């Protein structure tokens, strides 16, 4: 690739050149941002930037530009740093001004008493990879990257723990990369191997992470966590935002050394240092080799993390949408057929599952979230059916997590994030999820027994999540409410103990003798291209606008009054709430952006079918409330 890519390899050089030109005119900061933004706007240029998500840390050059797709897990206190400092040039012995922005460490001999020192403010965010990101999304992101990764020369693969073959692999891999133009970009296979490398790499440190908790929301997550230093627009970021961050990677080992060093005699005289507990130091200054620092130059909020969709809201996106809208109805039909198979031939449940998958909290009216559609699939067959079902859902959505609601997990797992005042950080919980994550609650795993107090708290938190789409983070002296937007799917045998917007009892039409095999065959029968279409469809349908005309409003009102006339007990305000959501989702699923009379009738119809089914179930079971 041409050498003009200095802005990727040596971004600090660009920054410093601009600083030198500026003559301390403060406008240079804006110019730097402008420059990088401009570079990244260029076609495809952002795909040349290596991503921390795909490339293992030791392959990345320190102080180069990297990107990171992540969730803001915690926000630390703002810190003051030397924006500009004065130092003595060792060769000329003259005082020079240096820029301290986008750096962790100053060069030697800082004159602390200089009048030219400018103190500036920045904030640190603790970022983790998007929790529950599906493997296919990760892989697809990795493949689309065209970054040329040159391993740093200092990297020596550790030989002790690896078998010979693996070693070989590790050694040849970088060499392959070093050769210019081996056409590595499109080569998915070699990429795959490489993306596997980090996983084996990161498990090693995570083994010793007992003393260093990387604080991932979900158990069993991997990948780098990152301390992102944010310089501009601090107020525009919120906790749990998903971002794609472009920034300068800093892994200076000094960062670690400073943290480790402790001289008790110094502590006595300078209590400023003793203020931080060891826990706090560990949380805020972890070794840079495990948690790299990233100095943010540019951040793009991610509306979704589906790699198959154009990510930026540009012209190509609208073109993409309009071209896909034509296909919408046919893809829907195929997807419905697929889901029907998966749900053992139950078409109605498939329809509802489809609606659930495209639901989205689109707005809030005072405390009421609108658009949420929590589905309770009751009557699920036992024995690993739900597990397979989750795997299929996982294949379709970019972000998902299956919470097996066994007594043990409910009693022991931390769902709600909690502030740890000793370490001064927010300890994550499984409900700290990115927007539009599919949360799969498997209630079939629940057995009889006693919930302890943390279990009760967890169940309450799940109930709050479903009813209000919010999670009350525990700040020990008070609770703080964080709104969220999570699609919750509950699978259960009978009616779920959690509230839900809509319950569908599953009525299997087929009873395959071997469930595993049945589901695997269905899954295998789909081509990747087909599955990809489904993925695009589900992400896209969610983003469409929607409205109701006055005329249809009137019709809906009339309808409601009529229904109530016949039997006021049967239809309540809650039912109307639900039917309005169903109608909305039904229209969107067909690519229609306004509610038509037909759409309303259809919504009414399927809701009636569903209700008659639940009634049936009730009379069957008798004692169910």
């Amino acid at each position, binding site marked *: 690739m041409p050498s003009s890519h200095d802005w990727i390899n040596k971004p600090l050089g660009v920054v410093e050149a601009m600083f030198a030109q500026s003559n301390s005119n403060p406008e240079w900061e804006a110019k730097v941002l402008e420059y990088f933004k401009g570079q990244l706007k260029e076609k495809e240029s952002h795909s040349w930037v290596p991503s921390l998500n795909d490339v293992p840390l030791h392959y990345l050059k320190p102080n180069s530009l990297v990107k990171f797709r992540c969730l803001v897990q915690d926000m630390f*206190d*703002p*810190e*003051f*740093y*030397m924006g500009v400092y004065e130092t003595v040039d060792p060769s000329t012995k003259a005082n020079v001004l240096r820029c301290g922005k986008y*750096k*962790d*460490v*100053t060069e*030697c*001999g*800082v004159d*602390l008493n200089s009048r030219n020192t400018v*103190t*500036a*403010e920045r904030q640190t965010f603790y970022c983790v990879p998007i929790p529950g990101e599906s493997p296919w999304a990760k892989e697809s992101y990795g493949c689309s990257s065209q970054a040329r990764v040159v391993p740093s020369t200092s990297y020596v693969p550790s030989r002790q723990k690896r078998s010979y073959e693996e070693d070989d692999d590790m050694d040849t891999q970088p060499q392959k990369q070093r050769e210019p133009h081996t056409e590595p970009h499109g080569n998915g296979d070699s990429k795959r191997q490489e993306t596997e490398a980090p996983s084996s790499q990161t498990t090693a440190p995570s083994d010793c992470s007992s003393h260093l908790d990387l604080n991932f929301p979900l158990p069993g997550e991997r990948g780098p966590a990152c301390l992102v230093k944010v310089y501009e627009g601090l*107020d525009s*970021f919120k*906790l749990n935002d998903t971002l794609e961050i472009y920034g300068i990677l800093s892994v*200076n080992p*000094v*960062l670690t*050394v*400073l943290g480790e*060093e402790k001289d008790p005699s110094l502590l006595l*005289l*300078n*209590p*400023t*240092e003793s*203020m931080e507990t060891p826990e706090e130091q560990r949380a805020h200054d972890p070794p840079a080799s495990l948690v790299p620092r990233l100095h943010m130059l540019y951040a793009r909020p991610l509306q979704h993390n589906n790699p198959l969709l154009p990510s930026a809201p540009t012209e190509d996106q609208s073109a993409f949408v309009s071209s896909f809208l034509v296909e919408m109805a046919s893809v829907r039909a195929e997807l419905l057929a697929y889901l029907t198979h998966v749900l053992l031939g139950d078409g109605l449940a498939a329809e509802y599952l489809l609606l659930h998958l495209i639901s989205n909290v689109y707005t809030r*009216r*005072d*405390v*009421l979230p*609108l658009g949420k559609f929590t589905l309770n699939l009751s009557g699920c067959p036992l024995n690993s059916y739900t597990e397979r079902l989750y795997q299929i859902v996982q294949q379709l959505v970019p972000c998902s997590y299956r919470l097996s609601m066994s007594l043990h997990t409910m009693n022991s797992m931390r769902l709600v994030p909690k502030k740890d*005042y*000793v370490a*001064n950080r927010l300890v994550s919980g499984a409900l700290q999820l990115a927007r539009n994550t599919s949360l799969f609650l498997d209630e079939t795993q629940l057995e009889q027994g006693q919930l302890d107090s943390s279990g009760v708290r967890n169940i*309450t938190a799940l109930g709050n999540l479903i009813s209000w789409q919010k999670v009350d983070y525990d*700040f*020990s*002296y008070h609770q*703080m409410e964080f*709104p969220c937007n999570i699609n919750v799917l509950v699978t259960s045998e009978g009616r779920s103990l959690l509230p839900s917007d809509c319950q569908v009892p599953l009525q299997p039409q087929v009873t395959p003798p071997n469930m595993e095999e049945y589901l695997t065959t269905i899954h295998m029968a789909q081509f990747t291209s087909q599955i990809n279409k489904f993925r695009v469809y589900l992400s896209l349908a969610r983003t469409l606008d929607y409205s*109701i005309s006055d005329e249809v*409003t009137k019709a*809906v*009102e009339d309808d*409601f*009054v009529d229904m*109530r*006339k016949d039997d006021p007990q049967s239809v*309540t*305000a*809650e039912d*109307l709430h639900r039917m309005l959501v169903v109608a*909305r989702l039904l229209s969107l699923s067909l690519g229609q952006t306004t509610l038509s009379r037909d759409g309303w009738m259809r919504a009414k119809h399927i809701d009636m079918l569903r209700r008659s089914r639940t009634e049936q179930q009730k009379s069957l079971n008798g004692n169910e*409330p």
Partner: protein
Amino acid sequence: MRQPIGRSENWQCGVRTTTPSMPPLTSTGLEVDMSSPLMYGTPSSRVEGTPRSGVGGTPARQRPDLGSIRKAPQVDLHSEPPSADGAVASEQALGQKLVIWGTDVNVGTCKEKFQRFLQRFIDPASNEDENAGLDLNEPLYMQKLEEISVVGEPVLNVNCSHVQSFDADLYRQLISYPQEVIPTFDMAVNELFFERFPDSILEHQIQVRPYNALKTRNMRSLNPEDIDQMITISGMVIRTSQLIPEMQEAFFQCQVCAFFTRVEVDRGRIAEPAVCRNCNTIHSLALIHNRSAFSDKQMIKVQESPDDMPAGQTPHTTIVYAHNDLVDKVQPGDRINITGIYRAVPMRENPRQSNVKSVYKTHIDVIHFRKTDEKRLHGLDEDSDQKLFTEERVQILKELASKPDVYDRLSSALAPSIYEHEDIKKGILLQLFGGTRKDFSQTGRGNFRAEVNILLCGDPGTSKSQLLQYVFNLVPRGQYTSGKGSSAVGLTAYVMKDPETKQLVLQTGALVLSDNGICCIDEFDKMSDSTRSVLHEVMEQQTLSIAKAGIICQLNARTSVLAAANPVESQWNPKKTTIENIQLPHTLLSRFDLIFLMLDPQDEAYDRRLAHHLVALYYQSEEQIEEEFLDMAVLKDYIAYARTYINPRLNEEASQALIEAYVDMRKIGSGRGMVSAYPRQLESLIRLAEAHAKVRFSDKVETIDVEEAKRLHREALKQSATDPRTGFVDISILTTGMSATARKRKEEVARALKKMIQSKGKTPAMKYQQLFDDLRGQSEAAITKDMFEEALRALADEDYLTVTGKTVRLL
């Protein structure tokens, strides 16, 4: 460097002409006097030979909160920063023009100004609790000085807003150069004090503690420009460290000749003297710990209070150092206002390393703490967190209040997503405003409850929880609990052993936390009896008595309770009374001012409006909604303003109207032999009327307020206290748990049973089932087993019979 304690003239102002290279000034008196601001201060404060009780006689005390004495020479305003000797020279020449280096503070003028402020400042409109008992038309701070002379606590708290209103320039200097200005203030106040009270003896010289600097109110808005300035922020204490003894002055003694010298600790470092100045031995000086001077220091972590945080971000924390007597003044969990100096310290350089982290550590050296919630445990004054309203805001609120339909406007702005239930919303609105607090403790009746309690009961799915959630989000001190998940302990308070200090600590629960707020309790019916029983005291006496683990106390819990309950049979049974439907003890029910039923009204017009409302909810854009309704923020401010500033009182007509209303209510029942109103209902009416007057921003409760209170109360009664058998409103359903007709029937059944048994003649024992069947056969009305058992119990109470197992014996 430090002078030995007691040499007052040396330390007071923190201005020094010395540079680090100069030897400590221990014996050269002339130079000291040169640098002392007293040279150009008032001549009255001459030092030599004053007795113990003068300025000179009283020991000065170090102020580590202002940092170590900085190298801050005074310089001529227009000359270059000169060397130390030059400064001395120019001082003598130019007198008044001198300022402290790096600032525009002239010590003499500053002192004069402050003394003038102390002598003249009057604030007739003051309503701060600190000033209670002072004559507001006399100079405020002179009275405080008098107080100091009596009490002997040498601390003078100064409200910065007073300084600002008196002399804006002085205020600016105070904010910008606290480190220089506060010592000057100290000096000024001591001169003034000892001039006025020459005989008083204080522990140490008076220290000025400014508070309420208006510069910054929010931790989030601190930025590099605030460094070394005086700021006030609010927050909550989350952690306090143990006491740190910090060396202020090191004491060195020569091992050879026993000559000693003192070295002041400068920014955590001691410049150890290498040579003994007496005997010139090299490296002979040793640090003597127990003769060095230490000061107390404590590290406190403060977190942003949840109220002033933008949504979706985590709270910030700041480190605060407390010194000397401010140590251990606050505990974790306290909400405080801190006034202090904001500091940024570069990360210590490490000689072994060429590169350093380019980050500063920041902290606040605290000068003054003010707890914002300290009055919760004692005192009975109004809300202490004085919410500041800007002029324009107040104007907007007043404009709104002057509209004739403000009551309806506000009630419709309440939870717009919930349809209709106008009266319930109105009730909740009045609850949000609350009545006027009355204190009759002098006459022995204690406080009267001002808070309105409301119970909502009704079918599941009638958005009761949603209403509760809304209220919880609306009020600043709201708590939301569910009856299912809370225990008595969680509601009241519990005693916990602090893991660090091993002390017993009282942790407060939801009811105490929502003091002056609203406690929303969902699923009230699911609460265990023991939990519910703690509510009895809270809901009438507004206090909470605790006696556990050696802690016996009474906490204030002036909270309004908004509860929601579901009927026992999941669906409301219109044939039953409220009590029967929700199965709550009537003792508790009678403590609710208003009990509303949230039922599905079943008529077509309502359905149509409901449908319209819901559909609109789903597709109207944000802007349209905002046009239609009042902003939630305005509503919040409106309520906060009314609660703080409006205290309506009953006028003559209104009292008459209330009396009439009460008499009327009593009359309704008396005709049928029932009591339809109790004094508690009268109190409810008064509270509601007062709340309604608050809604109008009116200082008087007038007849219209009483009318509305009556109407609302009647509506609520009509809904909840109607006897389903007769259709009459019967308050005894709520007060005794049983309607009068039901009681009458019970008596009738018992009489019939007795008669039947008597008619059977002398049979000492009877079969239970047999008797039941007989009674059923005899009576025209259907008799249920419950009724039969109740009758048996009634007869047993009369000692007429006993029931043992399946047999009934006559006595």
